[in-house]
């Protein structure tokens, strides 16, 4: 019997949630027995090669590429999980959400103290993803099935969620597991 397949990605995130996933210590050996990884920075598989059971999304959507990746995860994964504050609510990148985008870009690229006056340019290379008007939580873009808050979510929470999902049992969440910081 083939093992459940997991895929992971980091959109507008800091990879901290992936670090927390690795923070499960020796349980990582059990994980390797339990599941098979497909598209993920952990195994460096770049493209989906088979249908995936559980997709773990770190980070929210701050640019067009994030949206494309997220949509491809929705297409290829049976169950999609928002992992961490950024995926769940935009996280710290969303601090810009109450400031108009133009102001943010001008502050960063034109008026920043490290820019020679008059020499700055808002990046416009056509290979760059296009920045969105604001940072969107993943569930405002595609349907998300489960949410794991935390910055990052604790290793215990990730472990509990992943094992519950692949074993098809309900999540058993204790008070210590749910944290928003």
């Amino acid at each position: 019997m083939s093992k459940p397949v997991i895929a992971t990605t980091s959109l507008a995130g800091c990879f901290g949630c992936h670090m927390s996933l690795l923070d499960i210590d020796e349980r990582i050996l059990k994980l390797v027995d339990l599941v098979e990884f497909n598209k993920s920075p952990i195994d460096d598989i770049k493209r989906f090669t088979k249908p995936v059971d559980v997709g773990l999304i770190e980070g929210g959507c701050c640019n067009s590429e994030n949206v494309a990746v997220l949509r491809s995860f929705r297409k290829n994964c049976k169950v999609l999980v928002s992992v961490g504050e950024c995926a769940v609510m935009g996280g710290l990148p969303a601090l810009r959400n109450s400031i108009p985008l133009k102001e943010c870009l001008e502050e960063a690229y034109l008026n920043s103290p490290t820019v020679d006056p008059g020499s700055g340019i808002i990046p416009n290379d056509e290979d760059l993803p296009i920045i969105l008007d604001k940072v969107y939580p993943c569930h405002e873009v595609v349907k998300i099935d489960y949410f794991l808050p935390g910055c990052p979510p604790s290793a215990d929470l990730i472990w509990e969620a992943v094992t519950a999902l692949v074993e098809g049992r309900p999540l058993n969440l204790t008070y210590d597991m749910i944290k928003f910081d």
Partner: protein
Amino acid sequence: MSEIRFTIDGKACLAERGQTIVEAAKANGVYIPVLCNYEALKPVGSCRICTVRVAGRYMASCTQPVTEGMAVENTAPDLEDMRKSLIEMLFVEGNHFCPSCEKSGNCELQALGYRYKMMVPRFPYLWPGRALLAGSPLLMLERNRCVQCLRCVRGITSKAGRKVFAAVERGPHVTIEIDPKLAAKLSEEEARRAMDICPVGAILRKEKGFALPIGQRKFDHTPIGSDIEKGTGR
């Protein structure tokens, strides 16, 4: 003193005349979640998280006095879900970035989110643009985190009785302002009290923060309300 008999979810309770449902519940070891309510301040029923049901009618238990024979519903699943909704509303109505907040771990809104196992709000985020007021010497008013509970409005007044904090605007634009002249005269102790009275990280003592390490903060391991429930075998 004459006592009033009433019930909470069927449990027989006793109250003193004039006690609100929240106070009486607490005295009987029953926790009803509150956010805007604060000891020794006149209740104002603004957060509605303490909503209970009595004879099919909803009421804020922080402002409603107990009456004889009252049968209070406190933990009916639909009622608890309403409270959870209100907590979630507060999270989307403001800009609550817990990971970067000085009050994280000691924040009552966050603690309610934990207690109600809020994994994600059911409402879309509104991302209001709210200016931070940093003009007063000791305090910073980070209004993105404000829940308009009016605790500071009620609790912090000048010696002459003037309000140091006041609500301005109305509807979704309601926000709290700090009076610049009165704020300039706040003592260290008053500033500390203002910070402590705020349930969230909206009123901060400048140059202080993150005083307690993660793991030692108020709600790191103990759910809000467990002090009231202690020993009652919930």
